[in-house]
């Protein structure tokens, strides 16, 4: 009987456990959770912060889900791993032996690299307990500063504003979510944020976090020398994979745990998936890190199957993220990165959660079409005759057709002349082209035999 051990109870860990059970009905499955909850939705924390749902609601699996699948859930933190002895030590003194191990420890919010970053009142949106604590602190807070250039920071700003706290949002670049947005898209979101009462400070970096005599945050000093007073400082500058348990082991690590296409580390029988894994990608010949929910679920599924004896390669899908910020629906698909200054090194710490490395890769020949109609915009990134990326804000009717055209690598040369039109016509032509593509697929005769 195989003993499966999974460190981590998030999207990757819980999915892997479920998948193992589908293949191996007899094996012993143990999931170690560092947080005292069954699996919960980390992206859902933003909606807890905005009082859309009570905190218990983000718990996505109840204890009976684990029981029904005979998955043992242990609430503890793994402190040490011995790959030779095939054993993991926990902080409660227990040790767990294993035959197959999955490292799915995820990532936590990156700490702020400024003086005063440890003061009381520096807050993150990365755990359920942290979010519950933040909700309590919000009741007393009057002013907040948020720092960070991605979705998490924006969600925090929205949360503060929702609780009627005077909110100042500081961003290093001159646009919002600069990894993905162009200037117009940034402006569209900025107008929404201002309507919600958020003050935006562009081209602004924090020099130091200021504290009072009690060790609480009292404000921030900016690079400009200006000071902003605040009771809370929200940090959403990126994530840091949790790698403590693999330190000092022979398991190879770069920015995260290195795994092959089968999600196995260099130590046979030990796998990694989710935010703590850097997966070999056959197209780019590189190990890529994705910190997105759907990616973690997909990788967890493949890892689970392979642990249970199958041999399936993980194929990276098109990066995809849908979110709701200040009432605007936003969908980002595929390659969207703005070309960055080549002299600027890639700083991992500024890769925000809800982000994907592929958004920053450079297509060889990159051109784009952009259309705006009121609050609705669509931007298409093209590489030759293929769509490689799309960003849709507002009306989402194009989201699914565009995702399919990108996924299926459809030749869109016939659509090209209509891409310059802009406005509502662009949407109309994309929808018509999508309809034609589907109709042509129905027309294609099915090959029954083929003789040479």
């Amino acid at each position, binding site marked *: 009987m195989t003993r499966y051990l999974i460190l981590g109870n998030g*999207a990757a860990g819980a999915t892997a456990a479920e998948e193992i059970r589908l293949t191996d009905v007899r094996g012993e499955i143990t999931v170690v959770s560092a947080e005292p909850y069954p699996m919960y*939705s980390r*992206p*859902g924390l*933003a*909606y807890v912060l905005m009082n*859309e*749902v*009570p905190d218990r*609601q*983000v*718990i*996505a699996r109840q204890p009976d889900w684990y029981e029904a699948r005979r998955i043992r859930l242990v609430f503890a933190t793994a402190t040490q791993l011995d790959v030779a002895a095939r054993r993991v030590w926990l902080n409660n003194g227990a040790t767990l032996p294993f035959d197959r191990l999955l490292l799915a420890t995820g990532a936590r919010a990156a700490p702020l690299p400024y003086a005063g970053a440890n003061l009381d009142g520096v807050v993150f949106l990365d755990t359920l307990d942290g979010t519950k604590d933040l909700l309590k602190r919000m009741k007393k807070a009057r002013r907040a500063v948020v720092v960070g250039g991605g979705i998490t920071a924006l969600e925090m700003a929205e949360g503060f504003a929702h609780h009627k706290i005077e909110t100042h949002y500081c961003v290093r670049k001159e646009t919002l979510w600069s990894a993905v947005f162009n200037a117009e898209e940034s402006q569209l979101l900025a107008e929404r944020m201002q309507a919600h009462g958020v003050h935006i400070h562009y081209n602004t970096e924090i020099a130091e976090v200021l504290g009072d005599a009690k060790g609480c945050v009292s404000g921030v000093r900016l690079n400009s020398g200006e000071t902003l007073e605040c009771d809370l400082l929200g940090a959403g500058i990126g994530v840091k994979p949790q790698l403590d348990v693999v330190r000092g082991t022979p398991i190879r690590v770069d920015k995260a745990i290195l795994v092959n296409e089968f999600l196995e580390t260099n130590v046979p029988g030990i796998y990694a998936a989710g935010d703590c894994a850097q997966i070999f990608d056959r197209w780019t010949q590189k190990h890529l890190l994705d910190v997105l*929910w*759907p990616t973690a679920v997909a990788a967890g599924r493949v890892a689970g199957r392979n642990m249970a004896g199958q041999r399936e390669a993980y194929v990276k*899908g098109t990066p*995809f993220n*849908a*979110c*709701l910020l200040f009432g605007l*629906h936003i*969908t980002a698909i595929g390659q969207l990165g703005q070309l960055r200054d080549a002299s600027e090194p890639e700083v991992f710490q500024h890769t925000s959660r809800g982000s994907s490395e592929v958004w920053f890769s450079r297509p060889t020949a990159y051109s784009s079409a952009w259309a705006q109609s009121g609050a609705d915009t669509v931007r298409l990134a093209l590489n030759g005759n293929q769509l490689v990326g799309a960003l849709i804000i507002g009306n*989402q009717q194009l*989201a*699914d057709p565009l995702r399919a055209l990108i996924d299926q690598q459809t030749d869109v*040369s*016939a*659509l*090209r*002349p*209509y891409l310059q039109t802009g406005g509502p016509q662009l949407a109309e032509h994309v929808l*018509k*082209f999508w*309809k*034609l593509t*589907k*109709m042509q697929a*129905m*027309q294609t005769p099915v090959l029954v035999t083929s003789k040479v």
Partner: protein
Amino acid sequence: MGFLRKLFGAKTEPPLSAYAAPAPDAHVTPDATRCVQCGVCGYNCPAGIPVRDYARQGQLVDDPRCVQCGKCVEVCPRGTLRWERPNSVVMQWDEAEYAELKQLFAEAK
């Protein structure tokens, strides 16, 4: 349908919105790859249906308690849910439309 809502214990009157069911046989249909399991859908369901569990499995919501109010479709922050009619998978073939679309995009080439 009002009596059905009473019978099955709906807490609120369903909203009349763009998110309401387009046809009596339409089902709430999730796209599992968009779902992040936040649970906003089920929390807002007046009939208390665990919509999240359907969404995780990409399974259409066929719970008999569903009153087709569309609240879950409206509140989903990720655009995971939509209405589908069971027979809409089979696309209606329209020869005239096909010719017109071919013409439109043939000119472009």
